[in-house]
């Protein structure tokens, strides 16, 4: 019996080529037009795409390679050494030091766990909105990320910095968030929270708000300065 899902006009080979982006622009457009009106074809494409992604994803968390990135030393020799010394000198002269260095050993932050300067992955999560649901979602995603790194056996350090409306969410008045922060802080000692003093003082002046912070949150002078400085030091940045 003819399967209603099969469309004899569009072969499996053509659909595989579409999913693998091996078609010409015109061929691709033709399939895209057909997808708009052919639900069965749409389902076939979705299945193929999902299978492709499952295959790729299946090897995302395999045991990591233990070898260094470069398998052998490149051949040396005097021209290379002289060139390297000259470039170094020119670099010092023209000030090429503005580029952020990933995993920089210089970590001047006074955050808890600052002794863990050797951790190469450092993540800054920026909370600037007073949207409670959004903050809870961010904390949920953060927990999954921390669990992911823990499962991979990769050290990571995460700091959540709140300024703007975000500081309103770090007090005892938002119990759902407070409880979540307390639980996460207890579970992960590589996670810390900080709130911007400038914002808190500003809110007190302009809105008469008296912001109280839960014990897990420390005060920093300026959230935005910290955000900029950390990125320059090589921290990854995520907007929460």
């Amino acid at each position, binding site marked *: 019996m003819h399967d209603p899902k099969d469309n004899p006009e569009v072969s499996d080979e053509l659909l595989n080529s579409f*999913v693998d982006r091996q078609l010409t*622009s015109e061929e691709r457009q033709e399939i*895209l037009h057909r*997808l*708009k009106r052919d639900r069965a074809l*749409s389902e076939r*494409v*979705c299945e193929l*795409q*999902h299978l492709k*992604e*499952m295959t*790729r*994803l299946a090897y*995302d*968390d395999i045991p990591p390679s233990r070898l260094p990135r470069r398998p052998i030393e490149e051949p040396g020799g005097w*021209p290379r050494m*002289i*060139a390297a010394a*000259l*470039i170094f000198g*020119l670099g010092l002269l023209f000030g090429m030091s503005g580029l952020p260095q*990933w995993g920089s050993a210089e970590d001047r932050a006074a955050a808890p766990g600052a002794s863990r300067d050797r951790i190469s*992955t450092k*993540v800054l999560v920026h909370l600037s909105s007073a949207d409670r649901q*959004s903050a809870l*979602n961010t904390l949920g*995603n*953060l927990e*999954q*990320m921390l669990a*992911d*790194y823990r499962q991979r056996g990769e050290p*990571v350090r995460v700091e959540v910095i709140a300024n703007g409306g975000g500081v309103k969410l770090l007090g005892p008045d938002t119990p759902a968030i407070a409880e979540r922060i307390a639980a996460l802080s207890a579970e992960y000692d590589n996670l810390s929270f900080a709130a911007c003093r400038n914002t808190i003082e500003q809110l007190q002046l302009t809105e008469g708000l008296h912001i109280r912070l839960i014990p897990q949150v420390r005060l920093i002078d300026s959230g935005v300065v910290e955000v900029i400085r950390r990125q320059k030091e090589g921290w*990854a*940045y*995520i*907007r929460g």
Partner: protein
Amino acid sequence: MKPSPCLWLLPLLLMISNGLQADPARIVYHLHQLKPVTLKRALNNIENLYKGLDGERPEIRMLLQGESLELLTRERLKGAYRQRLAALLQKGLVLETGEANYRRLHDRLDPAFPARLNRNILSRLVDLQKQGYQYVTP
């Protein structure tokens, strides 16, 4: 002993060759909310990025976290927005999302806009930045 002029040319040649082989501009565009203005702003931003970085062979990835993945459903992605996004995919834009999020919505997603799946979207954001991708939000 006078140093050979060739010694001074060497770093210049190496620097020029490094410049010629400069890495393309790499940007990760992060969406995590579903406000009405989200898709319009994202499309405007990314089109401008392609225009402005044309000489730098930009590699742009749009990471759709959480509810923002709804932007790729058949019911939301229509008309001019659909065409503009299709045009951006032709330029090389890569869409990405989290695996669990994909499973939640997969039967509503438009197959013309496949997304690369990731086990954890925040870890992916971090990994991309480690690879040199610059982070942008709307």
